[in-house]
């Protein structure tokens, strides 16, 4: 086989592509391959065109490709959407596919509907027949497919789907030869996980006790995942009436002692804007997982972009500090969410985990999740039994600008968390000296906070002719492209603010730099320029809702390095 083989399944929404795809990826993984899964779908429940791409190979695979080596066509729509090369294998029920007539690809004809009818099964069982066919063509062990089908469906349904897959498997085995023999080094049993799953699990590990939000793609699966964890892990999850309520409820819970988080997409975050400022001035710790999609407004609900970086960094009126993590992998999603919860508690600030649709919903393999530290709640007042009625100086600096937190219910710790500027006890005040000293104290957190943030890192050969500069999920795409060309290395920002910009500047200087971002205005470039004075002239930008595909990066790098 070539180093990376691309398998893809496509059909109308409602055909079960989004369960079939990841399930088949697990079969490939169990067969010893490294796999990466990338879903594309419109914002429709029925109809439209859904597809799931699995790129797999003998070594780690982390990003999608344009090429397709094998394709499962479940409807005519596929032929309007996909470009097939002569070498592509297309598995389909060609008697029932009208548009397939003139495709160049090699047709693997499997009578999906006939088999399903024969077995008296529902139409959707076609998927299983097709998977069986694909497994045979790829030379996979049927037992592995059977095992994963059994795990994916409820018992009774599972059995009949296994039978259907068997029929597809046999049908192909009799008539075609294996096109791609799996000869991979067996990779260790690893996780197959999306960014949202990793983020959610990082939050559970980090002792999250409260999550409240309103659903919005591509962040909704964080809500779903955490909601499933409530009973077992002692976690309150509320689907609120809107995002305004979502963040305010989380702030209320955090004030009351919970470890609180909310999660949304850019549109929902627009509503959370005021709540963000509320958390900042009341110094109530909060973590926000924001997954970007193309905007403004509703934009393209189910596609990817990195267009919200500047918004996240600047959102809300007034001046205050916040921290923004921009994880580039599932491991970082896990680790940074854990760390974000600690950081919020340590500095009493809002902390962001900035995701995007590509990272949130694509599947990546991870050997294991990174080690984390301990849960750290920062300074907490233990109470004063002697003077239970006393007010407490919650907003007096203990160290590094940070005050001592009180959990309501503590004797002698009375204070007010106020959205107004306030005294050390929290009483409203607009005296000049009070305002000045509170602002200065809150900003004194910035220096130690900066030291706690992960610093940009260089990937690849030190002396490559071109250096891409990126944040967030673009890291995965560049790691993949690096396997195919040595013309570039890259600097990835795992966090964007606050950073030690002197150090960043030294790192950037003397290189042939090119920013690479999933947006139109090169937002990271702007932030770098503002903080270091370095203006990166070259840009490689994409803003059509799709991630960078491997071939695009390779050809750009080769061209730019000439």
């Amino acid at each position, binding site marked *: 086989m070539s180093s990376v083989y691309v398998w893809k399944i496509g059909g109308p929404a409602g055909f079960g592509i989004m369960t079939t795809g990841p399930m088949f990826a697990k079969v490939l993984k169990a067969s010893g391959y490294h796999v990466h899964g990338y879903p594309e779908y419109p914002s429709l429940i029925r109809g439209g065109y859904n597809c799931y791409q699995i790129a797999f190979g003998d070594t780690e695979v982390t990003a999608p490709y344009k090429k397709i080596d094998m394709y499962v066509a479940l409807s005519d729509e596929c032929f309007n959407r996909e470009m097939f090369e002569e070498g592509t294998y297309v598995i389909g029920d060609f008697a029932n596919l009208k548009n397939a007539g003139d495709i160049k690809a090699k047709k693997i004809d499997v009578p999906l509907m006939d088999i399903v009818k024969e077995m008296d099964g529902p139409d959707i069982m076609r998927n299983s027949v097709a998977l069986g066919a694909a497994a045979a063509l790829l030379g996979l062990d049927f037992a592995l497919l059977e095992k994963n089908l059994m795990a994916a469906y409820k018992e009774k349904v599972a059995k009949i789907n296994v039978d259907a897959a068997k029929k597809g498997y046999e049908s192909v085995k009799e008539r075609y030869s294996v096109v791609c023999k799996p000869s991979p080094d067996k990779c260790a049993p690893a996780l197959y996980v999306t960014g949202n799953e990793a983020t959610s699990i990082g939050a559970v590990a980090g002792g999250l006790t409260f999550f*409240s939000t309103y659903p919005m793609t591509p962040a909704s699966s964080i809500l779903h995942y955490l909601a499933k964890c409530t009973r077992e892990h002692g*976690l309150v999850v509320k689907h609120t009436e809107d995002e305004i309520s979502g963040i305010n409820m989380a702030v209320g819970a955090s004030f009351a002692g919970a470890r609180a988080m909310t999660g949304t997409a850019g549109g929902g975050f627009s509503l959370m804007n005021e709540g963000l400022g509320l958390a900042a001035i009341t110094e109530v710790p909060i973590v926000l997982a924001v997954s970007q999609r193309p905007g403004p407004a509703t934009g393209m609900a189910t596609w990817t972009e990195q267009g919200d970086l500047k918004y996240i960094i600047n959102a809300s009126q007034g001046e205050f500090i916040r921290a923004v993590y921009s994880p580039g992998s599932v491991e970082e999603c896990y680790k940074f969410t854990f760390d974000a919860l600690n950081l919020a508690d340590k500095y009493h600030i809002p902390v962001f985990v900035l995701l995007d649709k590509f990272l949130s919903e694509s599947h990546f393999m991870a050997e294991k999740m990174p080690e984390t530290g301990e849960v750290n709640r920062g300074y907490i007042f233990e109470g004063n039994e002697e003077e239970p009625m006393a007010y407490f100086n919650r907003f007096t600096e203990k160290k590094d600008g940070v005050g001592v937190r009180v959990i*309501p219910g503590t004797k002698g710790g009375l204070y007010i968390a106020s959205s107004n500027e306030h005294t050390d006890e929290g009483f409203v005040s607009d005296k000049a000296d009070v305002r000045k000293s509170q602002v200065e104290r809150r900003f004194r957190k910035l220096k130690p906070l900066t030291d706690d943030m992960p610093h940009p890192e260089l990937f690849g050969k030190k002396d490559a002719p071109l250096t891409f500069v990126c944040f967030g999920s673009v890291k995965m795409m560049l790691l993949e492209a690096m396997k195919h060309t040595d013309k570039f290395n890259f600097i990835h920002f795992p966090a964007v603010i606050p950073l030690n910009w002197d150090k960043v500047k030294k790192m950037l200087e003397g290189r042939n730099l090119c920013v690479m971002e999933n947006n139109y205005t090169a937002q990271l470039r702007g932030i770098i320029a503002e903080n270091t004075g370095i203006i990166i002239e070259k840009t490689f930008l994409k803003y059509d809702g799709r991630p960078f595909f491997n071939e695009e990066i390779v050809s750009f790098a080769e061209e730019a390095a000439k």
Partner: protein
Amino acid sequence: MKALDYNTGQKPVWCPGCGNFAIWNSIKKALAEAGVEPHRLALVSGIGCSGKMINHVRAYGFHGLHGRTMPVATGIRLANPDMKVLVNGGDGDGYGMGVGHFVHSMRRNVDLTYIVHNNKVYGLTTGQASPTNDVGSPSKSTPFGVVDEPLNPIAIAIDAGATYVARGFSGDSEQLAELILGGLNHNGFALIDVFQPCVTFGGKYQYEYYQERVVKIENHDVTDADAALKLSKTKDKLPIGLFYKAEGHPSYNEMHPEIEKAQVRKRDVTALLEELV
């Protein structure tokens, strides 16, 4: 506890004669009677003259954003069931800006006591009409008279699922204290809408206006929602007192059994990760 114990020593900034003073006194009285210790009390306020209450009642306080008291209070209640939660807000705050949160909080029957200082205007921003102002009355933002129909918070509350619905009047702080006490002792969502004259911007809605119209609710079965709804729609008179009280509904915390277990500590997620292999 005595009512005086709840003073904070902060000087009120309300206009002399403002209806908020009576609400303040009634709150302190009710708290003392209910025996709520200040460190067990979370006071949540909106923004407006009403919201200033936060500075004057000794308690843990959260002075939130305009219209957003309900979600904050709900968060507190869910995260810390040992706290009594008492919310103060204006009619602009709760019935205008926050009406969505208001309705959904009642649907949830969250266990809290919500006092709305209903002066029919925006006091702090100097006299624009609020959603309870009557059609025809002029204000700074409606110089030719309000054209929108007023909303009826009592009817909305009974319908939306609040399990304790009352209306008080700043001119009768005795009764008001009793209503608040009832709310504090009630397990579920308690709304106490209060006719609170704004002596500076309230236009016709002054003490005399209310004194001529209020009647104490008598001979009314508070467990009868239909009767309470009907009563809330009385046109010529303004009934004050307890409209509705439903017992036996599970309160919000009871419906969230995970609260008991919610503790901040590092968790072992091996099992969750294994599901993904």
